[in-house]
């Protein structure tokens, strides 16, 4: 994946992450159901949270690093 694509991916990762924790998507899981004895929406929110952390760690390792001109496409990531 090129640096530019990676940047776009990081942006959409953030945007879709925000959508996941906002209504109406979060309402899908706001039902009276329990998973492993816990409310479903609690599990859902924490799962999204974990995914967001992991995804950010993944992006953080790959996004271009050069501090001087890291806007340049194709710089080492």
């Amino acid at each position, binding site marked *: 994946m090129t640096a530019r694509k990676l*940047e776009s991916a*990081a*942006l959409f*990762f*953030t945007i879709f*992450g*925000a959508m996941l*924790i*906002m*209504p109406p998507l*979060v*309402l899908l899981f*706001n*039902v*009276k159901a*329990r998973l*492993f*004895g*816990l*409310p479903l*929406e*609690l599990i859902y*929110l*924490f799962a999204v*949270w*974990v995914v*967001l*952390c*992991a*995804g*950010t*760690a993944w*992006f*953080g*390792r790959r*996004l271009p*690093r050069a*501090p*001087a*001109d*890291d*806007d340049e496409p194709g710089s080492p990531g």
Partner: protein
Amino acid sequence: MLSANLVIATAVAYVGLLFFIAWAGDRRARQSSGGLLRSPFIYTLAISVYCTSWTFYGAVGSAARNGLEYLAIYLGPTLVFVGWWFVLRKLVRIAHAQRITSVADLLSSRFGKSSRLAVLVTVIAVIGIAPYIALQLKAVTSSIQAIGGTGAAAREGFGGIDDVGLALGVAAAMAVFTILFGTRNLDAKEQHHGVVAAIAFEAIVKLCALIAVGGFVLYAGGGLEAIFSNAEAKGIDIYSEDTFGNRWIAMNVLSIAAILCLPRQFQITVVENSDENHLRTAGWAFPAYLLLMSLFTLPIALFGMTTMPAGSNPDMFVLTLPLAAGQDGLALFAFIGGFSSATSMIIVEAIALSIMVSNHIVMPIVLRTTGGFGGNDRDLSRLLLNSRRLSIGIILFLGFFYFYLTRDSDALAPIGLISFAGVAQFLPAILAALFWREATMRGATAAVAVGFVVWAWSMFMPSFQSSSPWVAAVMADGPGGISWLRPQALFGLDGLDPLVHSVFWSLFLNAATLVAGSLVTSQSALERLQATLFVDAFRRSGRRDPNFIRGSATANDLFFVAQRVLGTDRATELFAGLPRPDTEPSAEFIGRLERELAGSIGAASAHVMLSKVVSGEAVSLEEVMQMADETQQAIEYSQQLERTSTELRTTAEQLEQANVRLREVDQQKDDFLSQVSHEVRTPMTAIRSFSEILLDEGELAPEERHKFVSTIHHEPAAHQPARRDPRPQRPRARRARLGESPGRCRTGARPRHPSLRRARPPARHARRVRRARRCGNGDGRCPPAQPGADQPDLQRHQVQQRRAPPRHRHLAAAGRELPGRGRRQRSGHPARRSRQDLREVLSRPARRARLGRRCRPRPRHQPPDRQAHERRTRAAPRRGAGCLFPHHPAARLGALTG
């Protein structure tokens, strides 16, 4: 039950430990390059100063009252850090490049180093943070009361003081801590390594304390499932059915704004950042920290609600649950955790706010009243530090005052949300500063002011409802009975949650004012430059920042200023590279100095200060802009020149080619003319010689005489093809001159020199016929026409070989051997060679002498007709080229250039 003395002693000991860590951290940072202190994990832990006693105590209370709603406070910052690449990275990059010291400095610097905006932002921040500090005071006071017990016994333990007195004591103690912590020295970049180390340590303490309590609750409650089942059985809503509505969205927006705009978050995340790449780690580690901090919040709240007696304060479950179970040690640890989160917040927040106050309120006043620094003996560093100490005292007192006024409210979280909404008013301006080039200072100032007024009216003021009857009346009926101005139903919009209502109206009007104001007003020159620096922060990296101050001050003057602001050591270090103290430093150096000063006293103050010292006048920014315009024009002009130069080069090349061709053609023409003249002259000379011999010498033998006469007779006839009228052939001759088909010109009709036309025989057609007949019979005199003779690409020597030159014919008639073909094959001029041949034929000395006299050889290198040719051509200019090639581009250019 723990004794109050033990609790207070533990707290003091803990603060002592913090001091030690801060001192060690500072020393370590000074001695080495930092090492562990500069690691991204220390940075991440320091960012978790976001988790205050609101998180530690208040989140549990929030979870007990509103279910999962408390998560919104942590999911918003998570989103900001997940998208660190887009906002935080830019903020950090700009802050490093511009030596930004606070939110107020950021906005002021971006919007033309405006002092007014900086003051406004500072005032709003101080007012907006007051509830937040009050929250910490309230939490610490409550926790001390909770752990020391309530009721009369506890009162006795605290010397009979009530919660207000306790809060005042806490505030005073906190002020002392903060002053001792944060204002020991001035750093050029406002980085406090010791404080960061202490904050990072506190982050670990509070996380461990909360997890310890969570573990205890899980153990005591019999596991997660049991806790939830018991809570459900007790009729508690564990599904948070009404959580994800408007309030959820509003709280997410607020927490997103808070993580960017809160002065302490800005201080830690942006100002204290030593390496942009630390954000890579913080991007996932800080959300993970938040996740761990909020992991046990809901179980603790549910377990507390299930087991604790009705009416107990859910905000203190973290303390009261272990106490109820008799776990005093755990309770003390939890108290230290809560105390830790409160102290870290207060320390960093007060430091950040005091920097803002001293840089943007105290410094401008000092600059204005003292009119610069002449004759002022007070050390500016000391003044700055003292103003910061005073600001810290004022900020904590404001917090206490707010606590005093709102002491009747019980929950912690709503107080914090008031602060969040207050600082959220900076968010539109900050985003515009980073991403919208056209945002103007007036637009931003108006937007922040409008947002602040709406917030103060709809959210801040209603929090005094319990203590002020006037506020209660206004909230019920509106000011003076104007119902559409009711604080919680502005413009008749009621039915919304008060938080959502206030957040919506304040941020909506804020953003609308920003957009409209920026579109209506225009930017000043400095604003435009700063806007480019901010919006194109990544594009401009590595380039030199533009300078706004022209140097007309000596290095001595500047050193004087720098010494007062930065201290002697730092100033000496900065000025070490300068050649002499009495020279004028370069504009670059002044720009660097301004940024260094901005790191200590803010961009606006540094700009004002240097403008006063350097050249003693305001800098003409119009001039800078004019220079930029001129540069732009120069660039365009140079591009035009370049284009013209390319055209010229092309034309010159064409000209060169044309010149080469001209020379070629000229050479051909010279050759041609000399040959023509030679070919005409030779037979003439021979005829004249022969006729002279015939006239002079009477004793010639008849056969000899006859031979001579017949030679005379044949000579002109042999030249018939060369003597035709050249006029019909002129177009072809011109072509030959242009070098288009030289072979053709030489084979067919050879053009004559004008002087030769006189010798043209009259009946040319008859002679042509005769010649054709003669050539056809192959008598040896006229060589048969060679195939391909008319082809234009025939070489010249082939053309010459094709026919025998006329000068050889009389030699052949005289029985002599034909000389080598082509005049280039022999040395000497052809005319002279033929005369030599003639002399050999005519062996008589007298005749030879006469002949020699008459046929005096011409100068060797100048064929006779060349002179005539030059006489002719001298009349017409050759160089102008217009005569020869009137339509050639080079000729046109020549005509244009003269």
